[in-house]
């Protein structure tokens, strides 16, 4: 017998990769984004970052985490709820904890696939690794916790149709102000200030400093990411509805 959580995670990964739109969102778009924005001089590069690819690669990794943890997960959880999938699985030996653990394991596995692809493409485009690996690992874990927490919160509390629209809207907003393609310094002052309170910019900064020399990590990036990484899952646990 395979471990129920491993079996559930494997099933989740297969379903995600088989669903064209989910694979497009979590794998294809981050890679294409890296290829396009890493090759063409369309956007400014923040001061202190050695080259364009280093900045775009960090943005693509953060984008991938956001797509897998928040967008894909919130939609998957919301529709699973509406179809009674979570309820049915809760009455198997997998149990409710196992359902959540399976989903988290699937998100982590998908992110590792993304990461391997993005680092490979980044290296081919001229990425020069010069950051702090420890910051990268901590940032990657915190970002995964924050975005997956938001995904579970949205998917576990709202109607599926609403989640579909809302998570896509959030994805676009955070893509715009999350320092993934446009550096915070290039945004108007009030927008940049607001962006520092949202989950994406802090995570992007930590990942950027993890893979590239970019000066010292600003304190706000740590606080912002930590608050979302702890707060969103706690809120999801508190408010989650199974059916």
């Amino acid at each position, binding site marked *: 017998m395979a471990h129920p959580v491993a*079996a559930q995670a494997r099933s989740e990964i*297969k379903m995600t990769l088989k669903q064209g739109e989910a694979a497009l969102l979590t794998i294809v778009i981050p890679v294409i984004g890296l290829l396009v924005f890493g090759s063409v001089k369309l956007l400014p590069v923040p001061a202190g970052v050695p080259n364009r690819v280093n900045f775009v690669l960090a943005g693509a990794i953060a984008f991938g985490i956001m797509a897998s943890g928040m967008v894909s997960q919130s939609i998957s959880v919301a529709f699973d709820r509406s*179809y009674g*999938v979570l*309820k*049915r699985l809760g*009455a198997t*030996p*997998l*149990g409710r904890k196992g359902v959540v653990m399976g989903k988290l394991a699937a998100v982590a596995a998908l992110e590792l696939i993304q990461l391997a692809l993005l680092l490979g493409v980044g290296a081919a485009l001229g990425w020069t690794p010069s950051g702090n690996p420890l910051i990268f690992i901590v940032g990657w874990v915190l970002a995964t916790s924050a975005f997956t927490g938001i995904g579970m919160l949205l998917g576990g509390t709202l109607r599926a149709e609403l989640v579909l629209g809302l998570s896509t809207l959030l994805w676009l907003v955070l893509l715009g102000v999350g320092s993934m393609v446009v550096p915070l310094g290039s945004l108007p002052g009030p927008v940049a200030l607001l962006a520092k309170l949202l989950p994406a910019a802090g995570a992007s900064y930590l990942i950027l400093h993890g893979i590239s020399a970019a000066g010292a990590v600003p304190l706000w990036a740590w606080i912002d990411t930590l608050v979302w990484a702890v707060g969103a899952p706690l809120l999801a646990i508190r408010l989650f509805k199974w059916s």
Partner: protein
Amino acid sequence: MGSSTNECAIRVDELEVRYGAFCAVDRLSFEVASGEVLALLGPNGAGKTSTIETMEGYIKPSAGSVAVLGMEPFRSQARLSRSMGVMLQEGGIPPRMTVRAALRLYSSFYDDPVDAGELVSQLDLGRVEKTMFRRLSGGEKQRLLLALAIVGRPRVLFLDEPTAGVDPVGKVAIRELVSALRDDGLAIVISGHELEEIDRMVDRVLIIDHGRELAHGSVEELKSRYGTECVEFSTRASLDLQVLSTRLGVDVEKIGDGRYRVGASASPALLSSLAAALEDLEISSIETVAATLESIYLSLVGGSKE
């Protein structure tokens, strides 16, 4: 699967389920033994789902107690789930998951699952093994859900509308499977609205409405306690039902083209009066019709609505 029979597998004692001020289940008590099939019947909103979901561990009782295989389901759902099979009305399978993937996934949750191939052939799912759940017919979906409910060799089984949307051949397959599972010692609770089918599958019936028990007993007991046989006849002649009803002293209703039902049991006095009343008419058939689970259900639930 379990082999011991006649042990009490499910015990529900003075169960109450409340949602705020609304009482969905009101002091309901019953037991289900191993090797027994109980039908839980009632109109929509009667409290069936709340009762079943309490036994499945989804809902915490507001008062009273529920024990399934000696466990308190709400507290021990994870442990109980190893010995419990569940078939939900809403399905609970992702629309894009194939039959094969669903069987493989659910098999992986249990220590000693039933061979998936055996279930596929038993429930005639071979043709659709690679088909996604959303593309299955209603009957195929029900058969897959039943397969997933029994893949872990449960000792108790909860089936919500197992034959809804199933074709006649599929109904026979499900009926035979339920019978085999009962013979294997499973305690089975079925709910649904297909009363003719349920009549053929169950040992005992519990009819509830407004969360309360209306009737409880074996199908035969209910038929002898609540069922009244009636007389049906056919004639091509045109009848004045009001005049006939007054003459016989019982209601006569038209139930089809040229077919009528006399709402009383077939006593010699009634048959004699009926023969006298119809002596000038050409009667093509006259027969006594035994009570059915459906007629009992309708008389009880219809009465409770008034």
